[in-house]
């Protein structure tokens, strides 16, 4: 880890430390490493711990918004003003974003970074969630947007760190989908 810290850190696929971290610690540290301070969100059960940790860290400016689209507007404005941001949401929230992606983030070349907690698959108990989940990748693909589904902790830091850097340098949005394989997801428990 001598020269060019950012470069080296993102090559740490098999680094021992990344194995012992939780996925939400990896998100928090990767956001920090990439100077991402502004984190508006619409909450999700799976994101609870991450949201708590981000709120507890004075580095971040983090708050809930009423809609995911609103959060996209906020981080877009902040980017143009020189502050980096990322939006946290769940699958059904992503489904509300086609218009803002097509009319703001993509044509204005804004590196919108989205973390999407994936519901609707691998043990979903709500039929509506499973249906809306199926719209997510077709929407991303129809707009030719970069997206990755993170399923393994050992690959996670590499995927999100590289993707954040790519979004910023290519001025293009990215969706980072957090699979239940990574997070455990939300299961029927009542």
């Amino acid at each position, binding site marked *: 880890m001598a020269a060019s810290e950012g470069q080296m850190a993102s090559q740490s696929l098999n680094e021992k430390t990344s194995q012992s971290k939780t996925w939400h610690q990896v998100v928090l540290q990767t956001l920090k490493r990439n100077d991402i301070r*502004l984190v*508006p969100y619409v909450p999700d059960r799976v994101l609870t711990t991450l949201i708590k940790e981000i709120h507890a860290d004075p580095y971040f*400016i983090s*708050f*809930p*918004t*009423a*809609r995911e*689209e*609103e*959060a*996209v*507007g*906020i*981080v*877009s*404005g*902040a*980017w*143009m*003003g*020189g*502050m980096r*941001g990322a939006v946290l949401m769940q699958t059904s929230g992503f489904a509300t974003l086609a*218009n*803002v992606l*097509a*009319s*703001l983030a993509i*044509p*204005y*070349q*804004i590196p919108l970074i989205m973390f999407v907690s994936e519901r609707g698959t691998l043990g979903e108990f709500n039929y509506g969630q499973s249906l809306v989940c199926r719209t997510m990748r077709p929407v991303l693909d129809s707009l030719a947007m970069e997206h990755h589904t993170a399923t393994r902790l050992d690959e996670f830091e590499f995927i999100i760190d590289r993707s954040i850097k790519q979004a910023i340098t290519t001025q293009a949005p990215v969706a980072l989908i957090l699979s239940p394989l990574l997070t455990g997801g939300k299961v029927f428990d009542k």
Partner: protein
Amino acid sequence: MNKPESAPARNTKVMNRFDLTSRLVAKLKNEEAVIGGIGNTNFDLWAAGHRPQNFYMLGSMGLAFPIALGVALAQPKRRVFALEGDGSLLMQLGCLSTIATLKPNNLTMIVMDNGIYQITGAQPTPAAAVSDIVAIAIGCGLTNSAWAANEEDFERLVEQSLTAPGPTLIGVRIDDKPGTGATRRDPAQIRERFMLGLGVREAL
């Protein structure tokens, strides 16, 4: 249901969007950022004279205030104005609560209220006959919200907002005239020029 224009906004003169926008722009001496909402709102901002600190929305209806909030958070020393139509704001009322919670003291929001979707054929909004947008804003926690009685009052409220301890929302009743100009629809250039204007980027 017989009053087509924002009936609850009593004792307020019906003004003109381009005139008010021009009055606002004439006051800007400190490289203030201005976010123009979709359609006529940014057409009139464009027509009032392009400035490097202007941002024009070409879609994403309802996001003028959220975008302005983002700019205000990123650059707390710069005054940020946002111009939004009543129909647009109705799409994103929740942002008023977010802004009231964050309380940026460098944000001035202006709602151009004609009670209609002028650009699509002047159909009345669902709020037109029954809702008071300033009362909604106050209810959301934006206590520093007021209707401008006339043009002089509008200018006074704009001045007042510059030193207000929190965000300001100014409601203005406007006529049903279309926008005066037409923004050049070049989103990448609009964004880049805006970032240059905010000192975030340097030109190649």
